[in-house]
């Protein structure tokens, strides 16, 4: 079992939303995309990915639909909703603030 890189709490939701903001994807695709973009730094295991997706569904930030995958299997595709886009903005700001704050502490302390 691969070890997940430790993420700041709440960041996984933000990352998923960001990935989905570009295009509709299935779960495995999301994991793959996070891995490639972060150049293998972020390896998201299914034990945190799928609960996160359920959380997003519950909050109404994404919706899910069944479709055919690239190799013609049935896969569940996630799409970001309008509420999800709004949330993405909010979380992104929050994240920037947080990173900025951490940065400040690291530079000055």
């Amino acid at each position, binding site marked *: 079992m691969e070890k997940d890189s430790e993420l700041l709490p709440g960041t996984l939701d933000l990352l998923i939303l960001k990935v989905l903001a570009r295009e509709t994807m*299935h779960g495995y695709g999301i994991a793959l995309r996070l891995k490639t973009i972060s150049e293998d730094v972020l390896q998201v295991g299914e034990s945190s990915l799928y609960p996160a997706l359920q959380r997003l569904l*519950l909050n109404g930030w994404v919706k899910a639909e069944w479709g055919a995958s690239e190799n013609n299997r049935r896969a569940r595709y996630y799409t970001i909703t309008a509420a999800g886009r709004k949330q993405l903005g909010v979380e992104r700001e929050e994240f920037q603030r947080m990173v900025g704050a951490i940065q400040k502490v690291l530079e000055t302390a």
Partner: protein
Amino acid sequence: MMKLLRRLQYFLHRRRQEADLAEEMRFHQAMVEQELERSGITAQEASAASRRAMGAITQMREESRGVWIWPWAESVWQDLAYAARNVRRQPGFAFVAIATLACAIGLNTSLATVFNAVALRPWPVRDPARMVKVYSFEKDPPKGFDSLGGFSLAEFRYLAEHAKSVAGLFAMRGEGGVRLEQAKVRGEYVSARYFRVLGAGMEKGRGFLEAEDQVESPEPVVVLDYRTWQNRLGGVSDIVGRRVLVDDVPFTVVGVTSQDFGGTAPERTDLWLPMASIALLSPENSWALDFLRSPKECCVDLAGRLAPGATREQARAELSVLSADFRRQFHDRSDGVVLTGTALLKQGGRKAGQVYAVFGLMFAGVLLVLLLACANVGNLLLARAAARRREVGVRLSLGAGRARIVRQFLTESLAMAGAAGAVGVLVAYALPGPLFRSAVGEVSFGLRPGATVLAYSLGLAVLASVAFGLAPALHATRGGFSDALKRRESAARARIPLRSLLLAVQVAVSVVLLVGAGLLVRGIQHARSMDPGFAVRGIDSVSFDFPVSAYQSTRLRTFYDSLTRGLDGSPEAGPYGLSAVEPLGHTYSLTSFRRPGEDARQDRMVLSNSVSAGYFEVLRIPVLAGRNFQLTDAGRNVVIVNQAFSDRFFGGENPVGKGLISGGPQEIVGMVRNAHTSGLDAVEPALYTPISFGIPPRVIVRHTPANVAALAALAKNLDARVEVRATPLEENLDSWLSESRVGATIAGLLGVLALILASIGISGVFAFAVAQRTQEIGVRIALGARASHVIGVVVGSAARALLAGLAVGLLLALWEGRVIGKYLFGVSPLDLTTYAAVLITLAAAGLAATYLPARRAIRLDPIRALHYE
């Protein structure tokens, strides 16, 4: 909110959701394997690697599910635990609140139980929805009669033979006074199909056969009720085939009904006889033959089962046509028929309207009590909520959402309402049965709250919890938390003082309930002291029970002739009167009449009675004009009218000497003063004819032991089998009052309950006012304010609410007085005594309720008060 909906949706489709997740997992795994294989690992190793990942997958599935269910369930649990903790911390408050609500919900559920049993629940038979009761409809029924009536037996046979839309029409006729062996029981004559169409179960034997219910050849057979068999006939196992004496005629028992069948009448039926057997029980009575054959002789009640596929409307249309066809043969008119369900209370018609009106009033009463209870508990909660503003403020500042805290408050009220509802349902199980039995007697229907009633009380409890819980919850969370932390009063005083509003509602509701109760009680008092216009006290009405089968009209005539001769000749018997209708006996006789020169279509119905001269003397009804009857009047066409008759039909002129037509030309020989002999409302026009012995008359005598003994001795002497029964007229008067008395008792109980609830509420409000203004009062006392001034401050804080509640309550009470006006026996709906008593009672209760809080305020130690926080 949307989140809750999505959660609910997930919960409803959780099977599919989990299947989705599982499939998603398999897809993910397959992709992982594919990826691994592509990177050069063998298929075997790849699948092993993915199997290793299985554990993680199970865990993932648990967690994914948890996102939907767990936090929510946990938070509900938290709320409940929190609510329980709060309740435990203030057991007194919880007790008062739950007891208050339980009373109100219990009353509501009890009333709903009775209403359901009487007005909604159909007969307890197979497929009751297809059963209908059939009534003949009459457009303009004479006064005192219902627009829905029965049919003649001949018409029933015609309808039963021709109707296609009703399968198995059957007829019923209740007979209150049948004697089984020697005991008086309630019997019912039914047509042969009765048990078969109803699908009533038989404990033993069978129902009736068509052959046993033939007018030409009636059979002496009887079906017994289960309890009659058990209680009166010892429950002997070989009962079927035995002979029993019904009105002294031997009848053969053919069946015993099963235990759960109580009959189709409101009272319990003890035995059933075939319709045609009426002829066996009164073989020489010409009425019995008329009843069995004549197309106009009234009446039997009809019911039947709708034929497969037929609707109620189709059946109504068909039966209306058939009824009109039948009556046309006998030059009689039909206004059609009416079909209703088989609930015990006759639906439609004027009587039913009255019963519904009474139920409506009672529902209004108990709902008002519930409103009062809600206002009460709401006020207590509000006071607590204000006290908890700091707690709420802290929680808000720690990041709790407002919705979350409101939900927390509502959970608390729901928990309390739930507890109260449970107690209330217990009340409804225990209360109506015994209450009904003591008021009405043995009834054929069960009085247990069914599913409908339970749903009703559940709904009430939930509504109540929202009603009294929402306002305090919103109130407590209003405004920012810093505001709440700073000062306790600021927000509480902000807008409409909700507490004052609730207080005003409480006062108004208690005024309405108390005035209603007061008026009804006064009405009863008034009726008891009212002059009925004739002598009631110390007068007996004596009737004779004959062995029906042995008597015919000529023999009856001989009996009464000998009896009156005996009475005339015996000095100890004293004066007596004869009357076909028992005074205040709940029976009426009507006759039609017209003035000379009018044609038959102008006939109107008036009350009638056939009496002897002694009737007016013993009852002390004075003859105002003309003369009383004389012995020589027997068989002559002379009548006496009452004042109401002369006022209505002769414009108040002296009617003596005038003629009228009632079954032939009659001459009015006298006019008597109005007397309430047939009811306590306004006296109706009445026509008296000389005694004719057509129906066995009552003998009206003054009640002295010698009188009654002499009468009984005379009767027994004439025929030892005759049973003599003396009824004091006061008992009859009492039974007239009993309906209103039950009403007054219920209204009185509601009123007292309302008073108690309102007192608790008022007391709570003032106690809170004192607690809230402790510092201010302390300062005032320290500065030398007198006790009266301090009390003024405390009471003044709610004075406006009290006055407003009083004003609204009085206005509503005025309206209420008009609604219940007809149950007041002539007491004015504006009765000053009642209003004064209500105001004094309320003032006293209010004073009592403010006493404790006020005392606390006066005795406040200024030093401690100033430190109070």
